[in-house]
């Protein structure tokens, strides 16, 4: 189980680092958002790229925040019945629903890779006046989904440990 402990710690630190990238994106949206408006209103010099890069940032934020959020148990659940279950029963439910989480992430990863390859092939950019390359961003989507999958698998293994009595509560 020691090996698995290391795997868990690795997954934790990956999602932690992704979270930190998220901090930077938020600060970027904040400072450049204010800067853009000030340049437009007071100096009549709006940028043609800031708002696009903020949109870019929001997609990237979705990519990096998923694993961080799920790993810190911030993904909201409709725990109407679930909250009343015992730890073991909760783990059994999680094992049953794991297939759904896995399927969604599998589709996001595989189809995401296809979409990203197509985007790379055409060197896709935004159609805006200042073209911003989009292909790296599209590649970040399957990567972000893969990190969420790592967290989902981590939780799945824990649930199995709980059910077979290998993990105290």
């Amino acid at each position, binding site marked *: 189980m020691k090996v698995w402990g290391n795997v868990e710690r690795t997954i934790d630190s990956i999602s932690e680092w992704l*979270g930190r990238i*998220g*901090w930077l994106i*938020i600060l970027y*949206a*904040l*400072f*450049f*958002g*204010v800067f853009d*408006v000030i340049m437009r*209103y007071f100096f009549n010099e709006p940028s043609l790229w800031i708002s696009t890069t*903020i*949109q*870019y940032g*929001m*997609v990237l*934020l*979705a*990519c990096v*925040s*998923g694993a*961080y*959020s*799920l790993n810190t148990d*911030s*993904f*909201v*659940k*409709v*725990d*109407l*019945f*679930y*909250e009343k*279950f015992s730890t073991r029963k909760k783990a059994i*439910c*999680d094992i*049953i*629903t794991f*297939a*759904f*989480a*896995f*399927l*969604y*992430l599998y*589709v*996001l990863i595989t*189809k*995401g890779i*296809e*979409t*990203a390859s197509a985007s790379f092939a055409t060197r896709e950019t935004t159609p805006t006046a200042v073209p911003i390359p989009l292909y790296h*961003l*599209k590649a970040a*989507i*399957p990567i972000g*989904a893969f990190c969420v999958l790592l967290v*989902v698998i981590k939780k799945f293994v824990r649930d199995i440990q709980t059910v077979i009595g290998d993990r105290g509560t």
Partner: protein
Amino acid sequence: MDTILIISLMFICLFVVLFLGLPVALGLGGTAALFGYLFAPEVLTAAPSTFFSTPWQHILVTVPLFIFMGNIIRYSGIAQDAYDAAYKLIGHLPGGLAMGTVQVCTIFAAITGVTPPATITMGQIAYPSMMRYNYHRGIAIGSIGAGGALGALIPPSVPFIFYGILANESIGALFLGGIIPGLILSTLYVIYIGIRCKIQPHMGPAIPKDNRYSVREKIGAVAGIWPFLLLIFLVLGVIWLGVATPAEAAAFGAGGALLINVLYRSITWEIVKDSLIFTVKLVGMGFWILIAANFFVNIFSALGGQGIITQAVLAMPGGEWGALLMMMLIIMLLGMIMDDWAIIMMVTPLFVPILNILDISTLWFGVLFIVNIQIAYLTPPFGFVLFWIKSILPKDVTMGDVYRSVLPFIGLQIIALILLILFPELATWLPSTMK
């Protein structure tokens, strides 16, 4: 297999996995992926596609920025001071702070064009303050949820803009049409809170008679509110003075919150860091739900869901009223899982021809539409306002608590909806004066 059967199974499957405790985002995405695999495999690329296009919408930047703003305010104590001051001013009224919360939400609704910001910001600020003054959870959560949902109804409103374009209805008229119903709702909430707390003082206790504050103390209290008011005026001001769009104003709110903290008291890196952590967690939760919900809608459409909607409305007995009822029912059902603009984009083109045949005013219907979406957002078991509130409040608040808290407010929304149906002038009068 029959389209109706497949779509029913899809919704049942979603309900089951969500009740089994799968996070909402993964439940929506997983169900959509499963039904996509089985019945429309060519549409599965919509999964990465929605992942890109959903956060790409410029208005979504308001979500992290307003979460961040709310958090900075909460940590710094500005909000607490504002609520302390408000308590001195209106604390003698039963439920006074909850009434104040609804008022602030109404102002916030006027600032932002979408629902999440008011809920997110007020959820972080108002809830802990009300708890401190021994307000009951039910009143606190209900007033935040219902007040926050006003964002789409009181102008400026992004959903109205989308509806106006699709229904070819004047956006200016829709904006005006939303004002009176918005104020009616906000007034109903305040009256309800007052009556409920008068009858059941433990819901929102008033200051005991012998503890009331003097006029001098009250005037002094106003000083404690200034940073909070300044922030509201900053965000509102940049929009109404034509400096920034509602989406851009969020950056001013967040920036303003930082700046006021610097002026008002010391800001530490710890506060900024904790706020960033909180924001990333919430954004992950919220964005992933929105993305998965859009993917769900794509699969729903690919399976022929839009055809089912039209059939359902046309097959409804009872002529004009039957069709109207069915349309509102559909909006409320879709509102369980769909984003407001997504519902508008999907059903407006289907409904407008029906409205024209039945000679129903598209202006009136537009206002009904948004009121319906508000109800849908707040109605258990699923709704975006419910999800946001649940994730913002402390962990010990369960989904059951949230459900119980919002129920009376849903009752009030339904009263407003009935008033609006009986007296269409409530929506159409103000726009008609401007012609």
